[in-house]
């Protein structure tokens, strides 16, 4: 037993610890969480608030000609009084046909009037915003802004400055929102504020799913999203959510402006949605998840796209972790500080360890086998005929089998429960993808983490 075994068992212990924590926490989550369907949400809202608030949907986009139409259409289809659902489209300097696509939809509504406004904005910056406003017959307002490319953070800030709504939701232009999601989310927000006797629940996150898992890369993301949707439900109950997804998280607009709105330097922060979530937690506000408020994202189609996306996410999360390190193991932030922040921190250690363990247990033996075989000219026939004669139960490494068995079992348990949580079954065709998911996906993500850490180290050296 050497250093490798100590590392292996540390990883097993940490993984079992986190999984056990979630499974125990599931009990309270299921007992306390309340799910609304469309009708019950309507009913609940009419009973508990005087009138439905104005909600703004902000769609920032950059070169999304393929998907933007579907995104806008899904917003136009939302179940909500149209005069209370404002749409703001911020074209962040697209160079493709996005604008053409957008106007193909909204030109139908006619009545275009151009306005120009100057507004005071967050962080003391005053911005002049030029926009076109289109009023539909049913009094729905659609505003279109074209700005020079300035990043998603700026685009969102322009949107929330112009917005009229008490609440707003951003919607990435590769995502679609289900019709009833907004009502469910609003009901959830009102419900939790009432339950906690506060007005500090200022953000509701949706349940993100992959819209059309048609390639293996998207299938893998599909399982991952289901899993994180399920874990987010537990995290929501314990106020541990550390990322408010870009697509359709619902925010209290005034409170977000008070908190300083979006970070505008994209290069510095990389993931503006994660940064905002950390800031909300840091300011002791609540983030809750609407466990059945579905939002669909297309997700990167190719492996390269996926790796690039995750590279950005991981880097962003490390930056956030470093910027908000005062919360790590800080009792002031409750379970978020003690549990979630340590998970986020240990994830780095786990990724690299898993990669190393994977190398030692699979890659290295294969390399050694090839080296050995090369010594006798790859003539393996004698070994094949000799194989399996001596079987001895004592020859297996039982502790390792127990450890990996428990990890696998917990993984399967989490997967099954995340399917139940999303109300979908596991079909036969899922099995082959699930094998890949269990065997390859996490190794792949760990590899991305390793690359990210490497790039940060190299990058830092370059800056100095």
């Amino acid at each position, binding site marked *: 037993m050497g250093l490798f075994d100590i590392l292996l068992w540390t990883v097993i212990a940490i993984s079992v*610890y986190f999984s056990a924590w979630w499974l125990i926490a599931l009990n309270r989550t299921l007992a306390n969480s309340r799910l609304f369907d469309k009708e019950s949400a309507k009913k609940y809202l009419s009973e508990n608030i005087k009138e439905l608030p104005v909600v703004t949907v902000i769609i920032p986009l950059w070169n999304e000609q393929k998907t933007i139409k579907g995104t806008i259409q899904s917003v136009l289809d939302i179940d909500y009084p149209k005069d209370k659902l404002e749409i703001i489209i911020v074209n962040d300097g697209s160079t493709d046909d996005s604008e053409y696509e957008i106007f193909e939809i909204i030109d139908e509504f006619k009545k275009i009037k151009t306005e120009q406004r100057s507004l005071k904005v967050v962080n003391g910056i005053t911005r002049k915003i030029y926009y076109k406003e289109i009023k539909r017959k049913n009094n729905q307002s659609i505003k279109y802004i074209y700005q020079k490319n300035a990043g998603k953070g700026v685009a969102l800030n322009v949107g929330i400055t112009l917005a009229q709504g008490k609440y707003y939701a951003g919607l990435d232009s590769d995502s679609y929102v289900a019709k009833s999601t907004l009502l469910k989310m609003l009901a959830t927000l009102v419900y939790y504020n009432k339950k906690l006797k506060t007005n500090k629940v200022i953000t509701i996150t949706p349940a993100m799913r992959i819209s059309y898992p048609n390639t293996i890369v998207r299938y893998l993301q599909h399982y991952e999203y289901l899993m994180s949707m399920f874990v987010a439900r537990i995290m929501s109950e314990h106020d541990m959510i550390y990322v408010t997804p870009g697509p359709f998280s619902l925010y209290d607009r005034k409170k977000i402006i008070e908190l300083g709105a979006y970070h505008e330097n994209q290069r510095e922060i990389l993931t503006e949605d994660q940064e905002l979530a950390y800031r909300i937690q840091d300011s002791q506000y609540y983030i809750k998840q609407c466990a059945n408020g579905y939002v669909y994202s297309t997700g990167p189609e190719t492996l390269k796209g996926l790796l690039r996306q995750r590279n950005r996410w991981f880097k962003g999360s490390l930056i956030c972790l470093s910027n908000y390190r005062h919360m790590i193991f800080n009792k002031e932030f409750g379970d978020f500080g003690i549990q979630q922040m340590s998970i986020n921190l240990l994830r780095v250690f786990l990724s690299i360890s898993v990669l190393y363990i994977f190398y030692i247990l699979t890659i290295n033996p294969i390399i050694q086998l090839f080296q050995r075989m090369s*010594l006798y*000219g790859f003539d393996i026939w004698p070994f094949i005929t000799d194989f399996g004669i001596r079987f001895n139960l*004592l*020859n297996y490494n039982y502790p390792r089998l127990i450890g990996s068995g428990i990890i696998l079992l917990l993984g399967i348990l989490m997967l099954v429960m995340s399917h139940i949580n999303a109300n979908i079954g596991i079909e036969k065709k899922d099995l082959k993808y699930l094998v890949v998911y269990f065997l390859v996906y996490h190794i792949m993500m760990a590899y991305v983490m390793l690359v990210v850490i490497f790039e940060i180290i190299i990058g830092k050296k370059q800056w100095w």
Partner: protein
Amino acid sequence: MEKRKISYEYYIISLNIVIIILLISALVFFVVDSKRYLSKQDESEIQNTNYLSLQLQYTLINELIETNSQSCSALNTALQDSIKDLGYSMDKLLEYKKDSMNDEYYENLERRYMLDNIKYWMFAKKAKDICNLNKVIILYFYSNNCEICPNQGVVLSYYKTKYDENILIFPINADNAQYEPVVELLMSVYEVNAYPTLIIDDTKYEGIVYNDELGNIFAEEFEKFETLKNTSNQSS
């Protein structure tokens, strides 16, 4: 400001679960380890008995009965099986030793296995003379500090598997020379100074002998047996 909740009970329960799993694994580890140790001890006992039996057969053939092919072939088979078992058992012993928490536990056993190896080697040499044993006998000296030795081991085990009945290999870990005078003696007889060293039927090969070369050596040896067999057939 109201204080945020810390779910202490979760932390305590999940920590306990982790501790229980670690304890169970440790328990299994120690149970398996001691079982392995006991099984190796048993095997060692069996090998001793086998040796005793072989020795008796040998003495009988040598002193009482006239050597004939029938009595010899029984001895050959028994010798072959015993040495094969010994080799396999020793390989496993070294693997178990690597897995085990304390090497010392296995050190004495390893010594015994090595002595058995030498014993069997001597026996095989004697039996070869008296029974015209058609086997190549190899004494293989290696050291833990020798980086290339594992490669020699791989090539040897390849041929052991390939020519199963015709090759007898006796590995000797030269690191044991410091507390095992027999090993030192053996090394001085063959003037072993470098690792790996192979003694193939009293011919010394210093340094690693690779696949092709070793194959040629075996081919030559087997040819010798053939001619020997032919001449003995002709004479009778």
